[in-house]
């Protein structure tokens, strides 16, 4: 019986201007879940893409079940029993759920695709994984979290021996995360091995058996999960001590007045009766399950989803926000949750992405863009947020996921907002950088900025926000003090509300 199902030795990978991996080792035992940790840009995804056959390594060796292999391409990797959930969503929006899951491995009959069988296979798979999504729904109509569940199902559909999960939970809420953990446990019991990448410490301890850490493309070490602490792991990752994950915010707000107030916002199917306010310097958290409507509310405030009725007030004066342009005019900033589709221009450089929401500020007296200034400002953000990029000209599609997310943040910090809406702002961001971002948020708050934060990361939202609004069924159902409340209390609110679901739905 072979225990060591995979070992990677001295893996190297060089991109133009970047050494992504310089001799990394990795070992995986059968039936084990290996956590892979490292800061943004450490090389985790690159290493996994090499294993999955979508990159060719520039050096090093790979052994599967102690047999040396040269992984030719993704098909070869699949044949070898390696399956991967990529960090970035990689589904076809123009196909249905079932068509995506069985893409390139469709069942056929008489040479033609057997749709009925494919749908049945999807249904079986979903039943096994306890996923509730219609196999015939178009992927473009699904929420991100559902798309992520489809990705997970797709990776499992081939009955792989090694499953790689690159930040699978960054788009999931706690409920789906639990579901995923059940799935992982099940496959593990059936003898599959897994490599699990995340930036959430509590997940590492909940699910892994041992942990390997990368830093700056180098292999730092491997530890058994039972024998380590999050302090030790953080130290391995960032190379220094970090005694705090959440910085301390020593004030609730800077002024007891309503900076931004929403009254009775309503849009059929998207949100109902939304009324709340944020004070200068206050951080208001919105929490809810997947599909509860948090993102829609934020989009409604920002004028992306056009409200049918309701009012908005800024410092007591009514304002009209019909589109993002007007929102920005009123100094409202909105960090969207889907960085690739809604946030970044992947084909443009770092500096162009950072300055795009506030170009007016970068014009010289001839109304020309002042590139020096762009570069200067971008450099500052690169330093503040510790963005890892070879130059500020680098096109952002070449950056690691976490660093891309930081650029979206930089873009909105750049407009000097009075109200900052953050939808899953720390998705895919490493512990160290998260800390920096929380600190920046507190600094902004201290200057009087009102912050609304949406997060599916419960510990995060409980620690960061001053006031917590619970969202369910497109409505605000409760307001809680995050310092006093517990996860159980929040769930009671949501589930208590859940009893009346039937009625709400009939009304709608």
């Amino acid at each position, binding site marked *: 019986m072979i225990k060591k199902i995979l070992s990677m030795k001295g893996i190297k990978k060089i991109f133009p201007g970047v050494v992504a991996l310089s001799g990394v080792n990795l070992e995986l035992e059968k039936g084990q879940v290996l956590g892979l940790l490292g800061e943004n840009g450490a090389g985790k995804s690159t290493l996994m893409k090499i294993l999955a056959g979508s990159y060719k390594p520039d050096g090093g060796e790979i052994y599967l079940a102690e047999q040396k292999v040269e992984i030719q391409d993704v098909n070869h990797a699949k044949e070898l029993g390696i399956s991967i959930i990529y960090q970035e969503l990689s*589904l076809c929006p123009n196909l249905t759920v079932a*068509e995506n899951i069985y893409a*390139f491995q*469709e069942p056929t009959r008489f040479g*033609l695709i057997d749709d009925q069988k494919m749908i049945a296979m999807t249904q079986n798979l979903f039943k096994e994984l306890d996923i509730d999504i219609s196999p015939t729904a178009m992927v473009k109509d699904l929420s991100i979290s559902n798309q992520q569940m489809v990705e997970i199902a797709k990776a499992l559909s081939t009955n792989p021996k090694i499953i790689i999960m690159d930040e699978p939970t960054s788009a999931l809420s706690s409920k789906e995360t639990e579901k995923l953990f059940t799935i992982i446990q099940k496959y593990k019991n059936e003898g599959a091995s897994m490599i699990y990448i995340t930036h959430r410490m509590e997940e590492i301890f909940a699910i892994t058996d041992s942990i390997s850490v990368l830093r700056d493309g180098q292999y730092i070490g491997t530890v058994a999960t039972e024998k380590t602490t999050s302090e030790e792991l953080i130290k391995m990752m960032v190379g220094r001590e970090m005694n705090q994950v959440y910085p301390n915010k020593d004030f609730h707000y800077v002024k007891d007045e309503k900076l931004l107030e929403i009254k009775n916002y309503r849009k059929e199917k998207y949100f109902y009766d939304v009324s709340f306010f944020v004070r200068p310097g206050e951080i208001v958290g919105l929490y809810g399950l997947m599909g509860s409507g948090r993102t829609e509310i934020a989009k409604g405030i920002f004028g992306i989803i056009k409200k049918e009725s309701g009012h908005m007030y800024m410092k007591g004066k009514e304002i009209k926000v019909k589109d993002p342009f007007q929102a920005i005019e009123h100094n409202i900033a909105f960090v969207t949750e889907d960085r690739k589709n809604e946030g970044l221009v992947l084909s443009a450089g770092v500096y162009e992405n950072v300055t795009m929401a506030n170009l007016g500020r970068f014009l010289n007296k001839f109304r020309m863009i002042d590139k020096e200034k762009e570069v200067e400002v971008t450099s500052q953000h690169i330093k503040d947020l510790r963005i890892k990029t070879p130059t500020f000209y680098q096109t952002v599609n070449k950056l690691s996921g976490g660093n891309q997310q930081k650029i979206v943040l930089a873009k909105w910090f750049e407009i000097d907002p009075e109200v900052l809406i953050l939808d899953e702002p720390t998705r895919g961001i490493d512990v160290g950088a998260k800390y920096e971002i929380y600190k920046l948020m507190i600094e902004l708050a201290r200057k009087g900025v009102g912050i609304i934060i949406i997060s599916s990361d419960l510990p995060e939202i409980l620690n960061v926000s001053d006031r917590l609004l619970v969202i369910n069924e497109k409505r605000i159902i409760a307001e809680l003090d995050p310092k006093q409340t517990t996860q159980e209390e929040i769930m009671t609110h949501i589930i208590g509300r859940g009893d009346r679901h039937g009625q709400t739905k009939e009304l709608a």
Partner: protein
Amino acid sequence: MDKLKNWLSQKKLFKSYSGVFLALIGLMILFSFLSPHFLQTNNLLTILSQVSIIAILAFGMTFVLMIGEIDLSVGSIVALCGIVLGVMLSSGQSAFVSIVIVLAVGALAGLFNGMISAKFRIPTFIVTVAAMGIFRGIGYAITDARPIQIENSFILFLGNGKIFDTIPVPVVVVLVLLLAAHILLSKTKFGRQAKIVGGNRVAAEYVGINIKRLQMKIFMITGLAAAVSSILLSARLYSAQPNVAIGYELDAIAATVLGGTSLSGGYGTVIGTFIGALIMGVINNGMNLIGMPYFYQQIVKGLIIIIAVFIDVRNKERLLAK
């Protein structure tokens, strides 16, 4: 008939082109009021055989647009294949051998486009705009720009003959190819791969699709479609000429886009394309029948195309809103 309708309306797919279909029906009603000749069986069959050449090109184009690429050389491939047909026939080859060789030439021309663009990573727009000159130039060079008469009776039958003395052969050909292309695009793994590539290239790579190979195959399909078109066209013209089918690439693309295929890839149906081609054919025929002056034909045709797409866009939005 009713059963067919029932079955059709159940199909979600059908709804995706019900907008263009509406536009087509609207146009037909309009022209049937404007000209008493329009709705005659004979005229309807004439329209079908008139559009057959563009429609077949557009079937091929649907595959190319599906993967987000473009082929501007199809008109020139038609010309080149026609010349080859003429040369083969006049050098005494049989119709069968000539057809096989013409199809091979079309596929090779397509392969040229597909290979150069895929292997050397050159945008297909550039490759096919260049190939446009190359293929037509070869056609001219072969015959010194002179037409070659086509006298082979089987070939002439393909372009001008009638089955049961009523149904023009090109109509049969176009319907058979419609079915084949529809199945290929929407029911086979090959068609699905095209859709995946057009929808998300990265995802396609990740699931292991060999995009380059697929691209080559797809350009071979447009080449083959052009070869078939060239046979029908040469027969229709009783001659092979290097200066035919100029600008047909734009007509074929317009028919395809009119039929709902997205220029940026991922969406499209062959049936929609056929309806798109029919709309163009009905406009041309209808305006000829009512004797509209030439200058106005161009203007009116442009406006009708815009309106047809507008109806389609609106219809799709209405369906989505439901």
